[in-house]
């Protein structure tokens, strides 16, 4: 089966982000960018399914500025076979991304699309579910285990009270949670090989999708800062302060 893995270019998770002083957004100029960590898990899972002989081809898709090609290269170095870059300067929100992905799915006809459960920049946690809706497919979100048997994907999901297992009729959408796997580091030979793998370029218009944002960001502000409090010298002092000063116990 063919698997599509969408990968998003985001501010690296180790970067301490700053709100721009004019309140228009987050400072991204000169900041290290990486693949969204949940998308790395998605790529890894697709590669493992290929290594097991379940998947035959993996297509990594990214959308946005031209540099998203680097994010695709990372996926190719991890083991994806080819890439598709949808280039756009627009603020691509989950609805637009889901529509673009649907158009690509219609062309490529994969049996499985594996996405990260959330992007660590906008924290929307929406694209996978929206793609599933547009395609009329089943969805297995927040997956910590995936197994494919015939026409069924069995997905164990991380839910609020523990774990839940569901059977999905294929083709289906899966979104990854942290415990699904530990993504590999690409080896140098694989990074070299990835340079030769093809990346197709297209524009939203080529896919017939209107990507006009539905949400306008009016402003971005800094959250209220917490101040460091006091150090206490002993457990007894801590308990006493929690009782008499903070009055929380």
């Amino acid at each position, binding site marked *: 089966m063919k698997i599509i893995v969408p990968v998003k270019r985001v*501010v690296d998770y180790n970067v*301490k*982000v*700053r709100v721009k002083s004019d309140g228009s957004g*987050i400072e991204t100029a000169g900041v290290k960018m990486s693949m969204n960590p*949940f998308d790395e898990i998605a790529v890894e899972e697709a590669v493992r399914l290929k290594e097991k002989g379940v998947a035959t081809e993996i297509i990594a898709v990214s959308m946005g500025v031209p540099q998203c090609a680097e994010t695709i290269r990372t996926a190719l170095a991890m083991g994806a076979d080819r890439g598709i870059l949808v280039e756009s300067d627009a603020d691509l929100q*989950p*609805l637009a991304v*889901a529509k673009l992905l649907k158009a690509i799915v219609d062309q490529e006809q994969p049996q499985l699309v594996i996405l990260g*459960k959330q992007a*660590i920049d906008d*924290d*929307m*946690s*929406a694209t*996978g*579910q929206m793609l599933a*809706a547009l395609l*009329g497919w*089943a*969805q297995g979100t*927040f997956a910590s285990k995936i197994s494919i048997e015939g026409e069924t994907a*069995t997905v164990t*999901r*991380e*839910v*609020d*009270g*523990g*774990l839940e*297992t*569901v*059977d999905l*009729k294929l083709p289906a959408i899966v979104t990854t*949670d*942290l*415990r699904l796997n530990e993504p590999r580091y690409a080896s140098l030979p694989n990074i070299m090989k990835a340079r030769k793998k093809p990346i197709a370029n297209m524009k939203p218009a080529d896919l017939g999708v209107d990507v006009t944002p*539905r*949400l*306008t*960001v*009016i402003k*971005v*502000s*800094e*959250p209220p800062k*917490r101040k*460091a*409090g*006091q*150090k*206490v010298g002993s*457990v*007894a002092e*801590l*308990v006493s*302060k*929690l009782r008499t000063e903070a009055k*929380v*116990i």
Partner: protein
Amino acid sequence: MTSLVLLEYDATGIKQPSRSAVAAATALGDVHVLVAGIDLGAATEAAAKLPGVTKVLVAENAALDHLMAEPTAALLLALAPAYSHLLAATTAVGKNVMPRVAALLDLQPISDISGVEDADTFIRPIYAGNGLATVKSSDTKKIITVRAASFDPVAAEGGSATTENVTVGDMPALSKFVSAELSKSERPELTAARVVISGGRGMQNGENFKLIEPIADKLGAAVGASRAAVDAGFVPNEFQVGQTGKIVAPELYIAVGISGAIQHLAGMKDSKVIVAINKDEEAPIFQVADYGLVADLFTALPELAAELERS
């Protein structure tokens, strides 16, 4: 303008995050709520008592058991025309269902709001809560998930809503519930607890979480963990507090052996009082703690249990 809130319930009533979603909806106008699944008698009764709710929609159908995304979204799609806003709490269920509903209606969902400005404008945290974005939606209808920690839940009792059974049409048969392994705990749920005590990598193994238990018992606290402790297998996934785990804002949060990565702080920094116990005095957790104790947790935890026991 009327909102519809998808409720989650258990044997004890309507879950607290759902009651927070009702509180957010109350800021927008009239509120109807939806209970869906099987054996809805108790849930319907509890929903009708929520203050501010005028109508309870009851959708009883085996396909809706466990609130699986595909049928639940189909149901909300059918109910949507009568409402200006559809809401649910930012829980595993809300996150799973609401974006699916939004796409079916060609709408951009507004995820995990922490504030309501007006009917079109909402505040939501981005970048692990390092920014608060004010966003205005141009959509005709809004699909929203609500960050429970940011809205005081409505009370469990005090209202008297009418109830109405809704007819459930054909449900998509795309997925099937197989099983659930839910943790059985006498303790309060993490997202509803007044006190939370969490352990991190410093706990060293799962066995050592037993040191936390007598303290949690004494304080009526829920037990949580950092991602590092969950990834290392000390405790199961449902314990995780952080950007991609549970967001909590208890009266008292005690972080034990947690260094305080940004991703963890994102899940707990709205707590009223934060206590940090860590042997590394440079640990970033101390920068957000109201009370910091630099100590080895293996001596501090038994001492803390004894101190709480004593008085």
